[in-house]
């Protein structure tokens, strides 16, 4: 490791001349948007898919087909399909939002389908409108599975942003090809570690937010897990 290089290039330098810190900021904005968009879009779509069998089979098969496409393919097909310039950062955001939705839609469909029917009926019986029922009964109960899904989305999105640097969109991925071209392992190591740090920070933010917003989740699921283990031991 050449620590001097990291020090010298932290705030300026590298090909983009924004330094490691500038690339980290680019990386953060390119990855945060698809994660948030994927999450927000997956809630109405997942709810719809959980209510209608036709919507479920159509939505899930379309998105699993899109998920089959390798990232590099999606990144170069999005600008062609949308008529955008190839170095427009919107390409990365659209492509990664599609991936995020492909993963998240399955989680959110499962999440809403796992809300027991008698609980929904009970909510209706005590006079909740369907909107109230969605906000105060179904969404909170689906919460834990939604959080589990968005954690997977976050980790894979943060790592996929790096592919965009090859079509000319700056991110920490720049460090990979610059380091590869100049056969300089320190630069590549720096990129890998920075990507992992972002992934860990995002994961901590999501789990903390989940714990604050869904305070009943952690204790309840732990108790349920313990009960299941006990049942397995007894059986």
């Amino acid at each position, binding site marked *: 490791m050449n620590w001097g290089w990291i020090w010298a290039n932290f705030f300026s330098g590298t090909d983009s001349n924004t330094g490691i810190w500038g690339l980290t900021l680019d990386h953060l904005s390119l990855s945060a948007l698809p994660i948030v968009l994927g999450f927000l879009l997956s809630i109405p779509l997942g709810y719809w898919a959980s209510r209608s069998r036709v919507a479920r089979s159509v939505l899930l098969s379309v998105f*699993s*087909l899109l*998920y*089959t*496409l*390798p*990232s*590099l*393919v999606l990144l*170069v*097909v999005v600008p*062609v399909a949308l008529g955008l310039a*190839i170095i427009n950062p919107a390409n990365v955001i659209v492509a990664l939002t599609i*991936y995020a939705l*492909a*993963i998240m839609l*399955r*989680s959110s469909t*499962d999440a809403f389908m*796992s809300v027991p029917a008698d609980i929904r009926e009970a909510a209706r019986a005590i006079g909740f409108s369907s909107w109230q029922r969605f906000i105060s009964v179904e969404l909170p109960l689906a919460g834990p599975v939604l959080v*589990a*899904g968005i954690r*997977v989305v976050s*980790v*894979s999105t*943060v*790592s*996929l942003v*790096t*592919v965009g640097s*090859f*079509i000319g969109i700056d991110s920490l*991925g720049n*460090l*990979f*090809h610059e*380091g*590869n071209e100049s*056969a*300089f*392992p320190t630069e*590549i*190591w720096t*990129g*890998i570690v920075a*990507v*992992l740090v972002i*992934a*860990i920070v995002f994961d901590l933010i999501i789990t903390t937010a989940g714990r604050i917003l869904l305070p009943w989740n952690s204790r309840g*699921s732990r108790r349920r*897990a313990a009960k299941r283990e006990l049942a*397995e031991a007894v*059986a």
Partner: protein
Amino acid sequence: MSLIIQAFAWIFNPIHYTTTALGTGIPDALTQHLILTGLSLAVAVVIGVPLGLFIGHTGRGRSVAIIASNAARALPSLGLLALLLVILPIVPWLPSNYLPNIIVFAVLGIPPLLAGAYSGLESVDRQTIDAARAIGMTEWQVLTKVEIPLGAGLLVGGLRSSVLQIIATVTISSLYGQVSLGTYIANGLAQHDYVQMTAGAILVAALALLADGILATIQRFVVPRGVSRGASKKRNTARGRGIAATPGKPIMEGN
């Protein structure tokens, strides 16, 4: 849209079917893509499947499987490729870059296989396994005659996402000069030849969709009839254990 039509014309142009000094022909690029995918898949299967079966059968080392699949998702495959290409020596009797490339492809292919084998075995009803032991089956018989057939759907599901992962990473490795179908995307990007780039994207997409379709069909056939009949009732047995997996669906990892 006209770009897509031009790309199809590019694909069907006979000029692009022979390798010349100017470029690799489509058959040769496809062969390279398949050889690399096959070799690294073989390495990944030899390591990932027995390990996953061991974890699933004994229940030991679950956390290893979960950590491995999460870490593989987080690790940027481009970074790993760039690093190994720089730090590993070139092996004289292998085509250049084969060693680092195959290591990276195999490393990324292992976690879905591990997760598939492990969650496939986990999804088998404990009572069925106890019954198999009670009628006098040895541990080996329990594994091969009960657990593997009953967990086969998820096992092949793991194979399916492993293959897709490897095909996607082989494509990316073209950005570092490896010849594969991704070469047309890499060359197209470098030369601002968007027709060639789109043609490459179509070829890779076709390969990925074809591979996925074949494996999805196999997946349907390996599930014993009794399992698919009863499967709808307990679809979510593998959930809540860190690996989101349902029989008949691929296990989702990063591309």
